C-alpha cells in the first residue's frame, strides 16, 4: 500500500467551547507523498507541532479531512482501530529520550514492535538491527537506558520508533540539543533510511540548512496557516519574504547575498554550500 498523507482544509482548535479555546490551524491543504522528504518550517507557535500530531491521528481535525493511506480521519472518527496508522506513521517527538521507560535498551526498542503484534524474538532482532543503525553496538542491548548519556538516550529512543518500521517517519527537531557531530551523524542516518528503504520523511525544524540540504519540498506555516510551499530552491529565492517571516535563510544563500552586494551576479541564489561552490567555480558569479 502506498502511504500518501493528504490534508484537505484541515482546521484545529484546542479545547473548543471553553474560555481556553485556542485556534491552532486554519484550512491547511498539504500533501506528503510516499517516499518524499518534506520539511515543515515556521516561527515558534506557528502550529507545526499541532500539525504533525495530525499525521498519525493523535489529534483529529476539528474541521476538514486528513487522509492517511486509505483511512479518512475527520472530527467524528472514533479512537478505535487507529493502530494500523500509528504503525505506518512513526513520530519522533522533540526530546524523545523522555519516552524511555524499560529496564533495558533492548526491551525499550522492542516495545513498539511488540505493541503492533511482532513476536518477542522478531522484536528482539529488530531491536538489535536498529540499535546498530543508530550507531550503538550490541554491548548496549542489556544496559539500562537511564545509565546512558543524553545523546545515547536520544539514539535509543529514535531506534525505538524506527524498529516499528514505519513507512512515514515524522521528526520534530530531532537534532535539538545535540553537538555538531551528533547532529550531522543523525541527519545523515535519516537520509540513508530515506534513500535505502524509501521511507518518507517529514522534518519539522528551525535549521534552514537542513531544509536546504535534505528536503525535496517545504511548507511554511505562520500563525496556524500555510503561507507558502514549494521546493526549497524556490522558497528561499525570495529572501526578503523569508526574513520577514523570521524563519531565516540557509548559510550559503546568506553568503551569496553578501557577494551579490559586493557586485557579484547569480542567476539564482544557491541554497547549499556545494551549489554555491559550483556556481563560483563555473565563474558565472563573477562580474
Amino acid at each position, binding site marked *: 500500500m502506498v502511504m500518501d498523507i493528504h490534508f484537505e482544509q484541515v482546521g484545529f482548535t484546542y479545547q473548543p467551547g471553553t474560555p481556553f479555546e485556542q485556534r491552532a490551524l486554519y484550512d491547511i491543504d498539504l500533501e506528503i507523498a510516499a517516499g518524499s522528504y518534506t520539511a515543515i518550517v515556521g516561527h515558534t507557535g506557528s502550529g507545526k507541532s499541532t500539525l504533525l500530531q495530525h499525521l498519525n491521528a493523535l489529534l483529529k481535525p476539528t474541521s476538514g479531512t486528513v487522509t492517511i493511506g486509505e483511512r479518512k480521519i475527520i472530527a467524528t472518527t472514533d479512537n478505535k482501530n487507529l493502530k494500523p496508522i500509528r504503525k505506518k506513521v512513526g513520530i519522533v*517527538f522533540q526530546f524523545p529520550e523522555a519516552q524511555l521507560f524499560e529496564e533495558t535498551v533492548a526491551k525499550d526498542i522492542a516495545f513498539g514492535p511488540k*505493541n503492533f503484534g511482532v513476536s518477542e524474538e522478531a522484536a528482539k532482532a529488530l531491536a538489535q538491527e536498529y540499535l546498530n543503525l543508530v550507531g550503538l553496538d550490541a554491548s548496549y542491548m542489556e544496559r539500562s537506558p537511564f545509565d546512558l548519556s543524553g545523546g545515547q538516550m536520544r539514539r535509543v529512543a529514535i531506534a525505538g*520508533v524506527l524498529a516499528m518500521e514505519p513507512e512515514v517517519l515524522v521528526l520534530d527537531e530531532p537534532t535539538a540539543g545535540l553537538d555538531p557531530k551528533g547532529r550531522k551523524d543523525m541527519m545523515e542516518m535519516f537520509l540513508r533510511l530515506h534513500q535505502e528503504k524509501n521511507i518518507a520523511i517529514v522534518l519539522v525544524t528551525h535549521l534552514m540548512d537542513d531544509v536546504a540540504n535534505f528536503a525535496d519540498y517545504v511548507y511554511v506555516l505562520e500563525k496556524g496557516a500555510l503561507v507558502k510551499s514549494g521546493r526549497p530552491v524556490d522558497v528561499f529565492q525570495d529572501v526578503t519574504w523569508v526574513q520577514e517571516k523570521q524563519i531565516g535563510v540557509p548559510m550559503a544563500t546568506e553568503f551569496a547575498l553578501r557577494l551579490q552586494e559586493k557586485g557579484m551576479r547569480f542567476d539564482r541564489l544557491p541554497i547549499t554550500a556545494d551549489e554555491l561552490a559550483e556556481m563560483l567555480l563555473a565563474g558565472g558569479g563573477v562580474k
Partner: protein
Amino acid sequence: MMNKLIFGRYIPGDSLIHRLDPRAKLIASFYFIAVIFFANNWQSYAFLAVFTLGCIALSKVKISFFIRGVKPLIWLILFTVLLQVLFTTGGNILWHWWVFTVTDYGLMNGAFIFCRFILIIFMSTLLTLTTAPLELSDAIEYILRPLNVVHFPVHEVSLMLSIALRFVPTLMDETEKIMNAQRARGVDFGEGSLVQKMKAIIPLLIPLFVSSFNRAEDLATAMEARGYSGGEGRTKYRKLDWHLKDSMVVVVFAVVTILLILIRN
C-alpha cells in the same frame, strides 16, 4: 482529559474579586464553608444562594463555568442526596418499602444537602478561578505564620507549595507529551480490561517519575547557584497589601453571618 477540569483552575481577569487580597479571599471562602452549616431552612439557603450568585456576578466569570465545575462531582452529590432521602426517618412517611423510607423531612434534608454541596463548590471554584496559584500560596504562608511558634516549618512548606503549584502545568504538559509519544509507539490508554489499562500506565508513569527526579535535581542546583540557603533572613518580592476593600470583605461576611442567624430557625 484535564481539559474538562474547571475546579482548581485560574482564569486571569480584572474584577473586584480578582483584585481582592488573596488572604481575604482564602479566609472568606473557608469561613463561608463553615457558616453554610448554620443554614437550616429555605429562607437561609435562599439568602446564601443569592449572596453566592452576587459574588459570582462581581467576579465577571460566566456562570456556565461554575456549573461545569460541578459536573464531575454531580454523581457523588446525587448519591449522598439519595442516601439522605431514602434513610432519613422522622416526619410524615410518604413512601415505604423494605428498609427504604421517604419522609417529607428526608426530602427536605436531601434538598438542603444538595444546596450545601453546590454552594460550597461554587464558592471554592470562585476562589481558585479568581486567585492566581502563587497568590494563594503566599496567602497560605501568611496565614500559617503563627505556627512558627510551635516550630512548624512554615517557610519550607510554603516553598514546596509554590514549587508544586508552579510545576502542575509543566507536569501536565509533560504527561501529555509522553502519552502522545507512547501512543505513537502503539500504546492504547484506557482501553481493554482493567489489567491491560493498568499495564498501559507504566510507560507513562516511569518516564514521568524519572523526569521529575531530573527536574528536582536541576532545580535544586539552580536554586543553590543563585544563593538560596533556606528561609532564614530572606526578603519578599511579592508583598501582599491589605486595602480598604479587603476590610470590607470582613464587614460583609459579618453582616451575612448576623442576617443568617436572624433568618435561621
